[in-house]
């Protein structure tokens, strides 16, 4: 179990982690989500004792990382940043880690077999592909047979085979009762891997809940409706207590640029009821599609006002528009 309590980290006047508290329970995969720059990696580094917190703290199975006697036997970590000497072989990299924990050298060979690097074990790690490097990182993380695993963006840059391998590995490890915290900015990946989600933005906790709850908690189900009479239908929907928003379009005459009828995004009224309303008022519908909320939508909605670079992106755009006007 990982417990993070009121954890804060400032770099100069920049706050990377802001009074963050959460718990990661054993026996399930916990996804650690947030936009780039949200503080995911920093939080993991703080938990692992690589960075010193400005306030608060984190414990693993009740102990601070620095208090663990042979930490790799309790905690395994796969960091996003490279941590292997390019001139050292995979075997020697694992060997020095094993020796520091008092693990037998035979454990190194077991891990090399597990991740499928046995054939290249004596080759310089600098020549490894991204996927092989990631496998070596996983081997290092699992070396001490740890109860707790922290994986920072483990599938980043991997091919589909590698993604599947990591995904199944995490699920297997969680099913053995281990505590797994895996960070990602890939929402869809987390939707199929994580049982529980911790979402942060700008170093603050946004939500910590079961994955399906996070999806359900988002705006709810929307329905996409295409009709030549959007105003009449909107009135009927509003009268039912729903909400209809007409999609913005470029030409300003109410129709789509390609001549199709305008699109309404309806919330608060089910698709079936919209059909009934339209039929009763003899409104023609060209399309009626229920939109399933995805984790992606839920995530974007949750973090919409905490995107690190949101302002920076919009400012230069505004300036260039002014420049064109002159």
């Amino acid at each position, binding site marked *: 179990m990982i417990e993070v309590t009121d954890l804060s980290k400032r770099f100069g006047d920049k706050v990377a982690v802001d009074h963050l508290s959460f718990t990661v329970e054993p026996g399930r995969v916990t996804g650690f989500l947030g936009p780039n720059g949200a503080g995911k990696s920093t939080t993991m*580094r703080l938990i*692992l*004792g*690589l*960075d*010193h917190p400005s306030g608060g703290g984190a414990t693993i199975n009740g102990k*601070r*990382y*620095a*208090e*663990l*006697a042979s*930490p*790799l036997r309790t*905690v395994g*970590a796969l*960091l996003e*940043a*490279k*941590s*292997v*000497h*390019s*001139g*050292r*072989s995979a075997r*020697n*990299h694992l*060997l*020095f*880690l094993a*020796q*520091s*924990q*008092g693990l037998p050298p035979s454990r190194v060979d077991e891990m090399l077999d597990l991740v499928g690097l046995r054939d290249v074990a004596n080759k310089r790690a600098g020549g490894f592909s991204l996927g092989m490097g990631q496998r070596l990182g996983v081997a*290092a993380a699992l070396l001490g047979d740890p109860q707790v695993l922290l994986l920072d963006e483990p599938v980043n840059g991997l091919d589909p085979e590698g993604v599947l391998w990591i995904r199944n590995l995490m699920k297997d490890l969680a099913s053995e009762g281990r505590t797994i915290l895996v960070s990602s900015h890939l929402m869809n990946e987390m939707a199929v891997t994580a049982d529980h989600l911790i979402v942060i933005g700008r170093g603050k906790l946004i939500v910590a809940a079961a994955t399906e709850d996070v999806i359900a908690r988002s705006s709810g189900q929307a329905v996409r409706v295409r009709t030549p009479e959007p105003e009449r239908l909107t009135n009927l929907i509003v009268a039912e207590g729903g909400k209809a928003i007409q999609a913005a379009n470029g030409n300003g005459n109410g129709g789509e640029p390609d001549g199709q009828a305008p699109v309404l995004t309806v919330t608060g009224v089910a698709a079936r009821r919209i059909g009934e309303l339209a039929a009763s008022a003899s409104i023609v519908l060209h399309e009626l599609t229920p939109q399933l909320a995805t984790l992606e939508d839920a995530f974007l909605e949750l973090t919409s006002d905490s995107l690190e670079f949101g302002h920076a992106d919009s400012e230069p755009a505004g300036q260039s528009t002014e420049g064109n006007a002159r």
Partner: protein
Amino acid sequence: MSITAASGELESTATRAGHWAAFSRLMKAEWTKIRSVRSTPWTLIVFVVATLGLTALFGWLTVHAIETGRAPRRGVELSLDPVAFILGTGLGLGQLAICVLGVLTMTTEYSTGVIRASLLAVPKRLHVLAAKAVVFTVLIFIPGEIAAFCSFFIGKTIVAPVSTVALSQPGVTRAVIGAGLYLTVLGLFALAIGTILRHTAGAIAIVIFLVLVAPGLLSLLDSYDWGAHIHAWFPIVAGGYITADHQQAGQLLTPWQGFGVFCAWTALLLAASGYLLHRRDA
């Protein structure tokens, strides 16, 4: 704070044997690290070849120049202090390889990111530095002494026509053993600077400046009383006194005092590097 203190007390009651076992595991890990990169054997090979080769080359050139009457003053110098001449030529340049190895031992941990793996395995950072320093000391001391003795015997044979010197003469054995000790402490000195700076190029540049350039600049101050003190107490200069068989006229420190000053500087730098390693984010 109270939690830290309590665990500290618990640790102090643990057996000494347990601590030693943990530290010997660390030294084993550091040994694996240092032996498994190519820079280690290559730097040591360059060190030995350069030291012995240059000792022979400079020795031969000097003796030849004296014998053909090109450098009569060198002949006087050489016969006055043959040990300083023999150990000063090859080792004077060969020592740079030791400096490079000392710096690389720590800075490559940062440049390659291995420092993160190292500190995840051993979060007690001072233990990592201590184990690394012990392993490095042994690694340098043995080739250092071998190179010092081989240099001496090669140099002694070559300068024989001009000057005779033997280990049995006063101070000579101490000077040759001292040269190996000087190299070992120099390596630790470079290791500390590498740990403080964390960048290979910057650390190597600074160490080479301190070893090759600074002593020459400081010798310009010798005509002032205070300047002579600064010169004598400068780590590299003080450390070098042990590699001469006798104390020069007007030399402010004895060979062992000088070596002590060098050790003190190195200990100070190692303490500073340990403090920074402990305090900084990795």
